[in-house]
């Protein structure tokens, strides 16, 4: 997800301008010179200016390149990420966690906490390279443990859904 500075900078310019405009069109408070519109205006302008500076590469010289730890003898070299083989789609794996959280939002009320959580755990765990014999028991047990702590002990109203817990 490393994007060129010109892309992120331009995005900030657009975001800043939109924020400033959004602030500008807010209705003023009658009889009060300064209202809710001033702060977004200031911030939006500042953000847009920062974006411009980033597009033009100002301040880039301050950035420290990530220090790579040199390998020493006796220390196994890290296996090269498989991304090279699987092409560009590999990078999309990073979106899996937020996608699973959204899945939780939509599914938890219908399926219930235990089932939704088990699906989440199973997918995350296999995506990180767990074998079936590790991922399955984990997916079966961890939702109950979390439910015990949050649902039972801390009384968070977790949805029961299709499969209510025994307690």
């Amino acid at each position, binding site marked *: 997800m490393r994007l060129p500075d010109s892309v992120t900078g331009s995005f900030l310019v657009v975001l800043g301008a939109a*924020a400033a405009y959004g602030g500008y069109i807010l209705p003023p408070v009658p009889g009060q010179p300064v*209202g*809710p519109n001033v702060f977004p205006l200031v911030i939006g302008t500042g953000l847009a200016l920062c974006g411009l500076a980033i597009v033009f590469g100002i301040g880039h010289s*301050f950035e420290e390149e990530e220090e790579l730890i040199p390998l020493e003898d006796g220390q196994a070299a890290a296996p090269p990420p498989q991304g090279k083989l699987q092409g560009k789609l590999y990078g999309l794996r990073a979106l899996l966690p937020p996608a699973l*959280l959204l899945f939780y939002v939509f599914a938890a009320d219908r399926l219930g906490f235990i089932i939704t959580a088990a699906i989440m755990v199973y997918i995350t*765990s296999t995506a990180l390279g767990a074998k079936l014999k590790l991922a399955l028991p*984990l997916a079966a047990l961890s939702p109950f443990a979390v439910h015990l702590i949050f649902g039972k002990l801390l009384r968070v109203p977790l949805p029961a859904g299709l499969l209510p817990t025994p307690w």
Partner: protein
Amino acid sequence: MLKTLLDALALISTWEVIIAMFAASVYGLVIGSLPGLSATMATALLVPVTFYLSPIAAIATIVAASSMAIFSGDIPGALLRIPGTPASAAYADEAYAMTRKGQAELALGAGVWFSAVGGIAGVLSLMILAPPLAEIALSFSTFEYFWLALLGLMCATLVARSSPVKAIAGMFIGLLVSCIGIENPGGVPRFTFGITDLFGGIEPIPALVGVFAVAQVMRAMLTPEPPPLPRRKFGSIMAGQWKLTRKYHWQMTRGNIVGIIIGVLPGAGADMAAWVSYAMSKRFSKEKEKFGTGHVEGLVEAGASNNASIASGWVPSLLFGIPGDTIAAIAIGVLYMKGLNPGPTLFTEKASSMYAIYLMFIIANILMIPLGIAMIRVAAYILLAPRSTVMPIIMLCCAVGSFAIGNNMFGVVTVAAFGVIGYVMEANGYPVAAMVLGIVMGTMVEQAFVTSLIKSDGSVLPFFERPVAAILAAMAIGALLWPVMVWVWRKLKPAQTVAATTR
């Protein structure tokens, strides 16, 4: 004074506090020792649990977990050369070199011992600095608060190990996030796009959980698994630490002081303290050539420094609600929820609670020694847990925890969104800590800014008229111009050297 102290003792000597503290310590040690799970993340995931505890027990968990996690990050740093938390990154190489020389006990012992000493030094600074500052702060008007907040935000951008422009941009993004909702001077829905859930604004805590926990799981998806820890037998861990203390007492004190200063600066936390102290130790050492080959001196100074910053980070947090680091940013959220709203009056009205916080910090740092030693001995087993079992549980805790904050599914959406934002920002060199500071401080900055503008009635003068305001203004503007000056200086310097050689 004595009565407050006794009240404070009574506050913390309940079973709830003791159990909470012990459990949080173990939790902090485990999370801190797992590479990729930071102290901030440990604290953020604790927040939903703190809802259900009494105020003092809630703070106890945060104090204990954060102190322990910062130390325990040293363990995989020394044994695997993979820092458990960013705060240990500065000296992981050095500690690993010591392990290779067969001095793992000394390296880890120094980690435990000087962390505890540093932590206690940090508490002392909190005890000494906070009350007099509170006296001064009582006379602050919105002008002073405005400049103070601006100074805090600028500090955070100055110390970021990144481009200052990107840091400032990150801060603006955070402030923009804090604009969302109807809690503004006009009480009108702002940037809500007609979504009812956004009317209440973005809660800082789910945003923090997203930025620090979900983004980390996202990164784990793309990085290879760290190697397992080789099992080894340890000799005496504390042996020789007293000798080190005597030999390097000056380095230790310097580390403590630097850590305290960096902790007090808003936005700069333990990782910054460790980097600065390690560099300082190397710069002033008599045996510079030994650095990098497994020399304990830098470890002493940086270890003393990063734990000192944890407690001193609470100074601006308790006084002004300006977080000294990202952990304190979370702590502020908890303080508000528990009715201990940060501000100078906290030290007069809730003095016993403040004393309780000091005491808990001291206890946590003393407890760190036995628990830390135990942790070092069992670390090999804990580090056996593969990432594919830890990360799914973290995901579940993110989902349930963010739901629990408001019993509202929108919290989960916030966590997911900020996970993506945090991930993208980090990947492109935008410091996340600056954004976090913006989110936490946004409402306060706006309030101080708008109230000041209304009071000044269009004139700029009142912003500088009061003496304290003028000083703070000068500092804030100086902080703003500093990167510009450095930039100009760097542009000029090559020109000068060229001129000198041609002459």
